[in-house]
């Protein structure tokens, strides 16, 4: 596929935008591809709704807006009704199954990841649930090389949090 559209929906504080940045950085700087990442959030920093959009392509991205996501990542129940109708037929919906309960089967594949409970039990920090999701996504789709994502993580998160984030990402790679 020459153009892949990804939409990530959740609430502020879950690392929605960071997830988008990691995919875009991995693709652009380390994956030999082109990417555009855009975002929108309400004014509350934490708890308000947050959305990140990423387009990854073999060629320079012309239209920079996600229209019909090939991949929809849902990190909060609230995001489900907002975005589920936009998924491209036969697209992939990735959910944090600890937080998103109401998903119905549809013309899409579902990748269900209990990311928050794994992050809590195994990492002692629910804040890296998004990295577990990204690991599972990369494992399932091969969207980007694992090394490209790992370099993106090393570059984008604070130094003292690199190990935690890499562990969570690698844990995600074992799922799916």
């Amino acid at each position, binding site marked *: 596929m020459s153009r892949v559209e990804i939409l990530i929906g959740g609430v502020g504080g879950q690392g929605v935008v960071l997830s988008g940045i990691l995919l875009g950085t991995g693709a*652009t700087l380390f994956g030999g591809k082109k*990417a555009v990442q*855009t975002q929108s959030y*309400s004014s509350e920093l934490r708890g308000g709704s947050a959305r990140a959009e990423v387009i990854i392509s073999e060629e320079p991205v012309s239209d920079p*807006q996600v229209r019909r996501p090939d991949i929809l990542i849902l990190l909060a129940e609230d995001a489900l009704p907002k975005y589920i109708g936009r998924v491209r037929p036969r697209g992939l919906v990735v959910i944090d199954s600890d937080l998103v309960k109401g998903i119905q089967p549809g013309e899409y594949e579902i990748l269900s990841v209990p990311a928050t409970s794994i992050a809590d039990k195994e990492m002692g920090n629910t804040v890296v649930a998004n990295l577990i999701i990204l690991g599972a996504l990369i494992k399932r789709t091969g969207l980007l090389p694992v090394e490209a994502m790992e370099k993106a993580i090393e570059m984008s998160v604070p130094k003292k949090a690199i190990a935690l984030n890499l562990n969570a990402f690698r844990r995600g790679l074992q799922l799916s």
Partner: protein
Amino acid sequence: MNEKRVLTGRYFMMGNVACAEGAIAAGCEFTAGYPITPATEIANRLAERLPQVGGGFFQMEDEISAIAAVIGASWAGRKAMTVTSGPGISLMLENIGFAVGVETPCVIVNVQRGAPTTGMPTVGVQGDMVQARRGSHGDYEIIALCPSSPQEMFDHTVIAFNYAETYRTPVFILSDAFVGHMREEVIIPEPEKIRTVYRKIPESGTDPQKIRGFLDEDVAPMPIFGKGFKAHVTSSCHDEYGKRNLIDISALDKFIRKLSNKILKHKEEITIVERDYEGAEIVLVSYGAVARAAATAASQARKEGIPVGTLRLITVWPFPGEEIEKMARKAKQVIVLENNLGQIYPYIKAEAAHFAEVSFLPPRLVGEIQDPEDILRKIREVSK
């Protein structure tokens, strides 16, 4: 003070950050502003980076003082910039007129957001397009650039400084929340590959009485403060020496015309457009991020055998009417696309309607750039 001014390299960078880096690369030393979503990242980056290279960012008590500080810094000989969004521009308008009237080089970045009034801060809309041109009172010309990507947030900011210094005038960057918050590949070139311009100033030792520091259509040298030029800088109608004249209508006429002509005389060298309409019967005219959706739709239409081209305005002001006419003479249909309800459309229509059918396609939702599918539908409709 030991960091590099130009961070040469390849990045996955946010548009707003690229704008700040563009300003620093262009030689900006002074910035003042009042934080506002969605422009805050520019201020943050400048506040962090400018002190590293010997400059400064000043958080002022409001936008009125921010633009005033920028004008003062420019008269003190510094390249200066302010960053804000629509509500901030509304507060700055009086002093923007002052900057135009006394010929002050400065860059004003407007990362446009959902409006009117405080509106919706994180949503990008091209809602202040005409405000930049007509917001302050009186007849004047302005220069405005419309970036469509983070790379252009860098490139256009450099150009904006060069235009401001060359023509001794405020220059707008009309970005929006969508482009300002967009991340994409940004390549920052080697410092020696970035062209930077500094304003003309009178030769030192020139007799202060003999300095014609104002109202030259070919841009008067700027008698900046601190060099012994003793310039009189007044917002009142003045002559080329800066001397007030509040009685002769001919002085007012000269004041208005010389200022406007200073921009209009150089319109051809200021104007930047992207033309891709060779052989096209239908031409999509747009600017900013919308132009990227238009290019997608045009390329799809050509695959379907419909001869569609694009014209993208990079400088929206001074309005490139000649470019519109040149395009319209060859086209049958002109479709104008903006992320608003049609702000530049009347200007385009005025130039194009004599030669072609002109129509406007708004976005389905203002705040979301046109879907290429919707543009294609419109193309098919007008091509029948």
